[in-house]
């Protein structure tokens, strides 16, 4: 069973978590990664594999799925980073929701900067669930935003469930 985190929970911790930012990282979207990701999700749209097809559709190069950005962060350990810094581990957390604001598609060769922060921390369901919302802002070298990804992680507080 997903375990309760061995952490002293409360407003003091949540205040420290809110607004916390992490060191940004830079990454290049690689054509072969974009295609491999698409294949692993059974998305066979030619714009994910064939540069000519992508260009014919008006893009600079092959086009990544929106969710591909999350793999770039996960492969650098940034998915679990936000909570790990506060003592939470993946076995404490459930993936509740994922949101994307898409400003433009990501194409092969795109150079991206990712800046991650904790946007919100709140208890819900009579204090038996901790919701932690992290945001990653992805931008190009000119500073123009490419996408905003927002992850809602849910920490079940089993001890409180039992007490309730």
């Amino acid at each position, binding site marked *: *069973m*997903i375990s309760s985190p061995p952490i002293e929970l409360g407003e003091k911790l949540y205040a420290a978590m809110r607004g916390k930012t992490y060191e940004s990282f830079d990454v290049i979207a690689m054509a072969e*990664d974009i295609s*491999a*990701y698409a*294949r*692993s*999700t*059974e*998305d066979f*749209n030619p*714009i994910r594999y064939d540069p000519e097809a992508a260009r014919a*559709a*008006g*893009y600079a190069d092959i*086009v990544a*799925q*929106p*969710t591909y950005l*999350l*793999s*770039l*962060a*996960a*492969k650098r350990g940034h*998915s679990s980073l936000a909570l790990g810094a506060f003592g939470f581990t*993946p*076995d404490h957390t*459930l*993936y*509740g*929701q*994922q*949101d*994307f*604001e*898409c400003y*433009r*598609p990501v194409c092969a060769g795109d150079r991206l900067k990712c800046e991650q922060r904790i946007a919100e921390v709140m208890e819900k369901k009579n204090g038996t669930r901790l919701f932690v919302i992290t945001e990653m802002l992805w931008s190009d070298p000119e500073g123009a935003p490419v996408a905003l990804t927002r992850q809602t992680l849910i920490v079940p507080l089993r001890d409180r469930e039992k007490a309730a």
Partner: protein
Amino acid sequence: MNPTTELKIGQVLTAEHPLRLSKERIAEFAETSGDASIVHLDDQAARDFGFPKALAHGLLGMTLAGRLLTDHFPQHQLRQFSSRFIAMTFVDDVLRCEAVVTGLRDADEGRSAAFSLKAINQNGEIVMTGAALVALAPANDQQEIFP
């Protein structure tokens, strides 16, 4: 494809192919997604955590919804895309997905369509709900056609 004028509120778009969350599919996605948690790859490990068998990645269901949208609309018209993972998915589940037009709006920045999304498993249970906003006639597209 120019679905701009044809969309109607209540219209349903359905993913042509279901997504089978086979062991191989999950293992491959574990590699490409960067999430190779043991609960996705090993039934016994999943049972140790209290699950009946290996868990599929919630994001796999989201990619099915994404594909439904980007197969129907050029990807640069996708503005917002959200999924809520309301039930767990497991190895050997088969997911289907649909999008329903919930709103059509004309605004200064162009016409857009709002969708509700859902993914359903082989037992008819909704495992994921979501929403999307798609621009239908972006001003810059028209400029390209009429320079």
